[in-house]
């Protein structure tokens, strides 16, 4: 039975982890992820969730314990943010290379120095190449839904999956949301059984080492398998939509009918961007919004289709790739490079370290992008502008 409740983003995720009947949670506290682990600890303490909660001594050990538990056949969960994801970085490649369906949530946070516990996407962008399925939520409902889907996807494709939520903007905000019944979620995520587990009755060697004559073949196999995850992701989202009435796509459109200009965003600021699009539409501008829901595997085709009729694409990054501009903008450009007809692309960087991005700033970006577009057409080089900087 579904019900409408007011829930903090962190608590919504904890509910998804509970409904998935997760076996092992290994996590280390870090702002702004802490409410998730606190809530899960309570659930275990109250017997609402029958799991082993391993209070590890670091994020490196959090992911390592998840790897061990997953290799032993358990359904596992962890969550982290910012510095924690960075400390975990080395271990993130292990479940994807060993085909272990670990599920994780990242409460996106800026990276030191200077220290900032607030949201941006620096941590997410630093782990672009870890071989996980990665998706971005923009509200608490999505945070819950995508976490539920992450279990199903990870266990079907045997790759780990990570849901990115914006630290504080989602983790600490209470919103209305629809919570399905435990049984419905349990039915959606069937019992997990990995074909190979650490079992004395059927001993296998996991994590052997590879000299040059075989390493490339292991990576080729991994890449082929990872590329093939996309149909499963789409299938899972379709089935989820049919059951629960909320539909997800790798690239989602907002008022894109006849749009000549498109904004591209990821995460919680997308809802602010919608307001800006509404206002601009009322002012007569042909503006729409596209959001990348699926970040890895990258939705090349869906992005190409989304911008077919678009003349100007304005990409907002919440991270800096120093010396290279915005990382999302770089990837969007490379994804569209082979297209015969492609939009002019103008990138902006904003919302770093928890700074809000206002409706007016989105409107400013559209206006500025139109000026920059003229410069592009004149053959001039344009720089990635960092918005809202006090000088």
């Amino acid at each position, binding site marked *: 039975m579904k019900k409408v409740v007011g829930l903090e983003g962190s608590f919504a995720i904890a509910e998804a982890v509970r409904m998935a009947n997760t076996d092992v949670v290994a996590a280390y506290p870090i702002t702004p992820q802490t409410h998730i682990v606190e809530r899960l600890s309570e659930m275990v303490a109250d017997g609402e969730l*029958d799991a*082993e909660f391993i209070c590890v001594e670091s994020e*490196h050990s959090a992911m390592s314990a998840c*790897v061990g*538990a997953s*290799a032993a056949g*358990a359904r*596992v969960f962890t969550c982290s943010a910012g510095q924690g994801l960075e400390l975990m970085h080395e271990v993130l490649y292990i479940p994807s290379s060993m085909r272990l369906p670990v599920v994780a949530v990242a409460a996106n946070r800026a990276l030191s120095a200077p220290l900032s516990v607030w949201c941006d996407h620096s941590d997410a962008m630093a782990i672009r190449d870890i071989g996980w399925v990665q998706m971005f939520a923009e509200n608490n409902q999505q945070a819950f839904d995508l976490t539920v889907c992450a279990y199903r996807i990870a266990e079907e494709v045997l790759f780990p999956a990570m849901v990115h939520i914006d630290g504080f903007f989602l983790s600490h905000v209470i919103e209305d949301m629809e919570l399905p019944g435990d049984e419905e979620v349990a039915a959606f995520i069937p019992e997990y059984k990995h074909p190979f587990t650490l079992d004395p009755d059927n*001993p296998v060697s996991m994590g052997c080492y590879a000299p040059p004559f075989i390493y490339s073949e292991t990576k080729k196999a991994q890449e082929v398998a990872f590329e093939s995850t996309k149909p499963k992701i789409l299938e899972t989202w379709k089935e989820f939509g049919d059951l629960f009435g909320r539909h997800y796509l790798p690239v989602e459109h907002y008022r894109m009918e006849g749009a000549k200009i498109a904004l591209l965003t990821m995460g919680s600021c997308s809802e602010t961007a919608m307001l800006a699009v509404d206002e601009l539409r009322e002012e007569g501008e042909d503006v729409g919004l596209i959001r990348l829901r699926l970040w890895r595997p990258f939705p090349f085709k869906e992005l190409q289709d989304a911008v077919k009729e678009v003349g100007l694409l304005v990409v907002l990054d919440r991270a800096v790739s120093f010396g290279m501009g915005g990382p999302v903008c770089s990837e969007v450009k490379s994804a569209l490079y082979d297209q015969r007809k492609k939009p002019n692309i103008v990138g902006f960087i904003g919302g770093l370290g928890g700074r809000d991005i206002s409706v007016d700033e989105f409107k400013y970006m559209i206006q500025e992008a139109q000026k920059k577009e003229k410069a592009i057409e004149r053959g001039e080089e344009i720089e990635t502008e960092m918005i809202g900087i006090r000088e």
Partner: protein
Amino acid sequence: MGIEQEDLFAPRLVTTEENFAPGHRACIGCGEALAVRHVCKALGNNVIIVTATGCVEIISSLLPQTSWRVAWIHTLFENVGAVVSGIESAYKVRKRKGKVPAAKEVKFVGFGGDGATTDIGIQALSGAMERGHDFLYCCFDNEAYMNTGIQRSSSTPYGAWTTTAPVGKKSIGQMTRKKNMPEIAVAHRIPYVATASPSYPFDLMDKVKRGVETEGPAYLHILSVCPTGWRSTPDITIELGRLAVETGIFPLYEVINGEYRLNVDLPKLKPVKEYLKKQGRFKHLTEDVIEQIQARVEEDYMRLREKVK
């Protein structure tokens, strides 16, 4: 029963099964491979072994081959304590939920070299011991980063030559004293801590069994002679392991629930020189330094004896 009879009798009690299969790629005379073989004999089949990156891992698991006839996993260098925690927790909860038969017997064991244990992996191991997971950890201590080419670790003894503690005009090699890892394990108040050596195989196997049967964390520190890194001839590996004990450099002892017990208590220690002179890594040491080492070994040994009640 006299010791001569035991020599004939005891080996027959040991299984002929080799769960650490022959054909691995260890150097000739490797004390560590021998120790792993004995440990695996004592562990039996119902075990899951987590191995850190290092010599044991690379000699045993070159794709597409494996030397492991038991369930085995390697992931990274510094995380054995955490991976074994995850596996143990997985079995615990899955037994509770009826996903694994409750009666199924599984032992959880971590393997690491001295680098993986006393340096880079000490945090994960400390965490696992503190949380009280049910596992046995075996440190195979060959006293340097042998796998990468004999670099010093915090477990390298004072005065030893290594490639990053070279002997020079201003250096006698390793200038610091060996970290006392068994005492660090004891400080976690875990129920079982012991030292062992493949030169004393029955003592070693007894300790493995005791450690793995102990409920909660158990720590076993095994001195593993490394002819390659110690610059010793491969035929004296067993002898060097014995000399390490007989000189008091590496005493064999157990700490069971905080109670110390010396397994080989020697009324008179052999001079450390007998141990040092057989190894190229100590050949540069002057009489002064050797005397200093002798004095420290005696002091440490007396301190340990005082703990034995």
